[in-house]
């Protein structure tokens, strides 16, 4: 008997047509929707940070360090979604010690681990001067914590700071490739499965990467706006305009590639196309509508913002609206892929309707808790390592 008995994880899905008997319990539920979603936020946020740290695009400076902390916060919660889903999470360490290398899953710990180390290192270099300053100004346990975090490196001379900048630049450059690799890998997990018609696509890793960047930039816009409002500080308009340009570029390519995917599918008209039409018109119709509408509408908004060179509160307000819509669109896209793929029966003769449980280890409440948890962790990280401005050294 497993030590982690579920409460409401196993719900038999209603179906139409013919499905294999074992398919009626959908194996990957809402947690596996959350997992690629959170991982995508990591990739997107990191890319923005690298635009400043690697390419020195000054307009992104106000959010560069916030983006790094965001990436770490989300990356910390991505494995939680996976672990919660496992029947035997206590055995998950076997995927590291005795990894079976023909499995795409076996690489997760290594890919995510490499990325986490890289991210933590970059954060350390990017915040080192602040950590040193806070180790001198903070007292008690917090002071001790900062002193530990300095790792004994308290040199803040210009030469040392140049060294920090150099390392940050290199790590950010490597991190761009790692971010694309991490999320491309997540797309590969789905795209490489030949058993599921809805997943088996060469474009899957590319679509995952592109949509990840879109969602990551969107979450960064929201975090920046909300944190600035809470702190009652001004929002840098150039930064917001820069974010709008990045969002516009990635959104354009995402919409084009995803549209191409659908057009190809319908143009090819392979055997299962009738069932795919049923899937789109049935179980995931709402998800597809959200994905399409909430992608096209923000695209139109951001295009207008850039074309008319909108600035001030209008820019900030419309960018915030667009970001909320885009985060919803990407979440819907994850649902449409992960759940939609399983709602299309392997028999190609039937369609299921997945009904998530509310409670339990694989329930909606736990999934939302994990998602919110990453934002709470970001808040804690931002309190510990304020990303807004440099801490002044004590005299």
């Amino acid at each position, binding site marked *: *008997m*497993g030590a*982690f*008995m*579920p409460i409401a*994880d*196993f719900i*038999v899905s209603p179906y139409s047509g*013919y*499905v*294999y*008997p*074992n*398919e*009626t*319990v959908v*194996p*990957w539920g809402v947690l596996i929707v959350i997992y690629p979603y959170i991982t995508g936020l990591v990739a997107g946020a990191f890319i923005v940070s690298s635009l400043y740290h690697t390419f020195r695009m000054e307009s992104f400076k106000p959010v560069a360090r916030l983006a790094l902390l965001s990436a770490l916060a989300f990356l910390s919660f991505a494995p939680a979604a*996976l672990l919660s*889903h*496992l*029947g*035997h*999470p206590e*055995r*998950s360490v*076997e*995927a590291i010690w*005795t*990894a*079976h290398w*023909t*499995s*795409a*899953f*076996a690489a*997760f710990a290594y890919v995510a681990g490499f990325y986490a180390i890289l991210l933590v290192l970059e954060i350390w270099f990017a915040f080192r001067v602040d950590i040193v300053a806070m180790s001198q100004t903070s007292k008690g346990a917090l002071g001790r914590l900062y002193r530990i975090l300095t790792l004994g490196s308290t040199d803040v001379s210009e030469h040392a700071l140049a060294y920090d900048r150099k390392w940050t630049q290199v790590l950010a450059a490597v991190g761009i490739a790692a971010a694309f690799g991490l999320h491309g890998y997540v797309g590969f997990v789905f795209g490489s*499965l*030949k*058993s*599921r018609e809805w997943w088996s696509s060469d474009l899957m890793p590319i679509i995952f990467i592109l949509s990840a960047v879109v969602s990551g930039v969107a979450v960064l816009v929201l975090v920046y706006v909300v944190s600035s409002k809470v702190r009652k500080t001004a929002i840098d308009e150039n930064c917001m305009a820069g974010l709008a340009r990045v969002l516009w570029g990635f959104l354009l390519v995402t919409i084009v590639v995803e549209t191409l995917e659908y057009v190809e599918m319908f143009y090819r008209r392979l055997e299962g196309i009738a069932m795919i039409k049923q899937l789109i018109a049935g179980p995931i119709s709402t998800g597809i509508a959200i994905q399409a509408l909430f992608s096209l509408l923000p695209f139109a908004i951001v295009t207008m913002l850039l074309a008319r060179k909108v600035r001030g509160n209008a820019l900030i307000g419309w960018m915030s609206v667009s970001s909320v819509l885009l985060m919803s669109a990407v979440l819907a896209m994850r649902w449409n892929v992960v759940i939609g793929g*399983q709602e299309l029966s*392997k*028999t*190609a*003769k039937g369609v299921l309707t997945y009904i998530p449980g509310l409670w339990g280890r694989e329930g909606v409440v736990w999934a939302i808790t994990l998602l919110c948890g990453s934002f709470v962790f970001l808040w804690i990280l931002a309190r510990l390592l304020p990303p807004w401005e440099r801490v002044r050294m004590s005299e």
Partner: protein
Amino acid sequence: MSETNTCKGQASRRGFISLLGKMCATTAVCSGVGTVSLESLAAAASSAAGPAAAPAKPEFPVSGPVPEYDWTKHRWAFGVDATRCIGCLRCVEACKVENNVPFNAQDFRTWVERYVYLEGEDKPRVDSQCDPVNIAAAESAQDYRFSNRYRNEKVTKSFFVPKLCNHCENPACVQVCPVGATYKTPDGVVLIDEKYCIGCRYCVQACPYGARYFNEETQTTDKCTWCYHRITKGLKPACVDVCPVQARVFGDLNDPASDISLFIRSHQISVLKPWTGNGPHVFYNGIDGEVS
């Protein structure tokens, strides 16, 4: 069943622990510490002395509870004769009992599909014993039968198709397992080490035949093993034994006179979803292109 399923993992771990023990013993002797008996020293020395002094190595890895069974000497395969199956579902019940499969309507190691072509329709109506109409006819999700739902229709063609794990030559389920808990044995059977499975369900996704299910009680994946605990003792799988019409055939491909060899030679056989490249080893007679 878990005993046989775990044999590979246990064998390799046992070997590793044994090697570790010998290394520790040698280290302890060299460093002059620890208390090692003369007998254990002699045993370690004799096994470390090389092939000349070592006892003859067995030709095959020890495969658990049936030490006399040589899994390199067999290549098991399964045949399904759809022209014989009468849809009695005794095989489904026997499998559930034999292998402790939960008695419900969503977990099966084997099941039976019914294909019915009605007059004027070019596509078959397909159902299995799990169809709500059939469950209603059985008056329980724990009893299995096909309702006589087409008795007032004009049926032009119909047949039953038993389904089970295809024990593929290149199993996609084995490829995707992140810990190697599911593996292919030398005699061609795909097994799951339920003491090693982490319950990620990647294999459930990868199987194109829907042959795997997630066992809620053990929190691990489960599927047909061709009754490995029986076939290694010279018996046939439970579903084959109970079939009243010999619609299920099982045997050793290495034996030209076996039931399966004769079945393959004497029928126009096909496999399910050959395009997957998995190389299924359940061979069908009497099915049409609508069966997937």
